């Protein structure tokens, strides 16, 4: 399957009106060439989330990740400015930092070339005899990085508009919850055996809740009560109302600003390509996805509490219960999304029609097609 074929199949697929839409063709999940196209046209040209800014506390707090094949360091520098830079030494091109932690300097584990937290070279041993070496001119290339509503957003594309522009509409919907004030209380990294889009699509629709999540939250959800509005150019969303079985999902009693149904409304936002946010008046959780081959997805999974709940002495207890539930729900999602990946390997794997409750998936497919085959999607 070459990439032109998969991209063409997708373009044909999304040309169908929503009322008769089909799931995405198998090729767009399985083709390594299509993944290469996604890496160059989507992951290298979009805002990718590296988690919450408050997870990097104080000078030297850093994390590493890979975006479109680029090894990247995100670090809070000496002046507490959030920065991102290439994680590749300017000497013999070794990877510099791994995982996450706190450091004073960025020191290459190979020959001890040492960089300051702003990416400038501090020093390199025994380089004084090479006339071409110039410390002042040597630094780790900067990667665009912004703190957007508390999210660390990165892009390799210097011409991409700011997140406020790309994700225009988010404020109109959930601005009243002020995401930037939420505090992260947990963060984990996972790797599942499925294509990244299968997990992204799983998040976008709640059609799967009654069955896939029958063991946890499925019973509390009625398909006929779900609303899947049309999305925005940079993201799709839907929302559901929670009852009081999950106290954290409701506005805290000390929150006197929210009224009526807004006190118990849960938002599910899918910010293209791969930041999936569940936002409630009491807590939030998120998945940030990057592909790791067609067959695996790397997942940054985190969450936390609204400021009112952070003040509540009972919050840790509530949150422990919620975290246990989220983990169980995630385990169910893992099973469902990995089974889709397995099913896709069949010669009989042919996409079927989408429910009206899968409108976000249709919009996601259109967005992807627009990125990999510009001009294929009618404006």
């Amino acid at each position, binding site marked *: 399957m070459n990439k032109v074929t998969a991209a063409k199949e997708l373009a044909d697929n999304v040309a169908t009106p929503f009322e008769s839409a089909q799931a995405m063709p198998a090729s767009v999940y399985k083709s390594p060439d299509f993944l290469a196209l996604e890496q160059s046209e989507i992951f290298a040209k979009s805002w990718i989330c590296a988690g919450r800014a408050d997870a990097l506390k104080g000078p030297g707090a850093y994390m590493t990740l890979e975006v479109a094949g680029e090894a990247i360091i995100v670090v809070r520098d000496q002046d507490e400015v959030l920065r991102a830079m290439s994680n590749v030494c300017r000497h013999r091109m070794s990877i510099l930092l791994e995982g996450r932690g706190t*450091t*004073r*300097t960025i*020191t290459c584990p190979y020959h*001890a*070339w040492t960089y300051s937290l702003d990416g400038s070279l*501090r*020093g390199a041993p025994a380089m004084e005899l090479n006339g071409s070496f110039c410390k002042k001119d040597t630094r780790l290339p900067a990667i665009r990085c912004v703190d957007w509503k508390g999210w660390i957003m990165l892009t390799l594309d210097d011409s991409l508009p700011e997140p406020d522009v790309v994700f225009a509409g988010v404020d109109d919907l959930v601005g009243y919850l002020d995401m930037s004030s939420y505090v992260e209380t947990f963060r984990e990294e996972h790797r599942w055996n499925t294509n990244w889009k299968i997990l992204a699509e799983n998040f976008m629709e709640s059609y799967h809740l009654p069955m896939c999540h029958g063991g946890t939250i499925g019973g509390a959800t009625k398909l006929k009560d779900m609303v899947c509005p049309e999305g925005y150019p940079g993201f799709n969303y839907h929302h559901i109302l929670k009852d009081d079985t999950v106290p954290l999902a409701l506005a805290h009693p000390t929150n006197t600003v929210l009224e009526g149904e807004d006190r118990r409304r849960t938002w599910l936002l899918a910010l293209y390509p791969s930041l999936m946010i569940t936002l409630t008046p009491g807590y939030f959780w998120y998945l940030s996805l990057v592909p790791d081959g067609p067959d695996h997805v790397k997942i940054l999974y985190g969450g936390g509490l609204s400021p009112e709940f952070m003040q509540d002495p009972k919050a840790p207890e509530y949150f422990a219960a919620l975290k246990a539930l989220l983990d169980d729900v995630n385990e169910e999602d893992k099973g469902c999304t990995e089974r889709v990946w397995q099913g896709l390997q069949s010669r009989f794997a042919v996409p079927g029609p989408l429910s009206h409750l899968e409108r976000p998936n249709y919009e996601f497919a259109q967005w992807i097609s627009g990125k990999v085959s510009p001009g294929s999607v009618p404006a």
Partner: protein
Amino acid sequence: MPRITWICASGREVEAEVAVGRTLMEAARGLGIEGIHSECGGNLACATCHVVVDPARAAALGSPDAMEDDMLDMVDAGREPTSRLSCQLTVTPAFDGLRLTVPGV
């Protein structure tokens, strides 16, 4: 053995005997002196083993060479007239009684 005293930014003072031939950075790491990090392992690449030598004794220690002088401009706490990188200070009997201020934390 020469006796050396480190005065940390917290005010804590540590006095210890250090064998001749050891660097003051290695000795400080062994003693767990806060503010001496040696991120590059003594390769004169990081400037995180910064000490300020008692001015009365600085001359006896010799002058920093060109590479150390260059790296001293990188110290996080700011360079002082008698700033040194302690990975470059190899203990001799002349170091006995030396007092070092550690400006870093």
